[in-house]
């Protein structure tokens, strides 16, 4: 399983806060995850790849697109914030 979380504007746009995704392969790329999420929630891909959205895996920011997700990972999509 993979835990996926959405916050703030994304949570509202996608209509959910979290979602557990069964992992069939031992690994998943971010691209594969986006496809799976778009199948689950139509239009999710466009929302999740909009400018400014950042990814965190296991509660740490990830800048690397070549990232590979493993079972038990928690991946979060974080909309931009103001510096306040």
């Amino acid at each position, binding site marked *: 399983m993979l835990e996926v979380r959405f916050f703030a504007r994304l949570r509202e746009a996608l209509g959910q806060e979290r979602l557990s995704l069964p992992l069939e392969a031992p690994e998943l790329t971010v691209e594969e995850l986006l496809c799976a999420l778009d199948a689950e929630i139509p239009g999710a891909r466009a929302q999740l790849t909009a400018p400014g959205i950042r990814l*965190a895996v296991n*509660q740490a920011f990830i800048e690397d697109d070549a990232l590979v997700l493993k079972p038990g990972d928690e991946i979060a999509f*974080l909309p931009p914030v103001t510096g306040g």
Partner: protein
Amino acid sequence: MSASAVLSVAVQTEDFALEDAFRRLRQAAPGAGAEVAFVGLVRDQAGSVASLTLEHYPGMSERSMLAVCERAAKRWPLLAVEAIHRVGTLGPGDQIVLVLVSSAHRHAAFAGAQYIMDAFKSEVVFWKLEDRDGEKVWIEAAPSDHQALTAWEETSGEGAP
């Protein structure tokens, strides 16, 4: 430099009492000569903001805050740090954030507190939903600026927006 600094971070919906925070700081590390506190408040900009709702990523926000405090305690000889960030719905004048730092010396206390607050602003994620006369708006770093820039890139050489 001071691996022994006592660090405490919290994200909470409840308000915080300043007198209590100073007391905890002194109990955590007695013998300080200098304390610096920063308090951030919800500003009422010409009465336009009725309320502000802060959302965070539980676990990740505390972890980021702690990482910031640890870096500060390595860089300056701090004795103790107490940091509290509120989430939930707040009104104008409400306290949002407290950074409280103690040290033997005042320049370290000032530098540590300012560094922590600056790093919180740039590294710790809190989403803000403003209620402006009933209209709820997620506050994001000027997306229009970002779009304007993208538009320029896409149309470069064509005389642009």
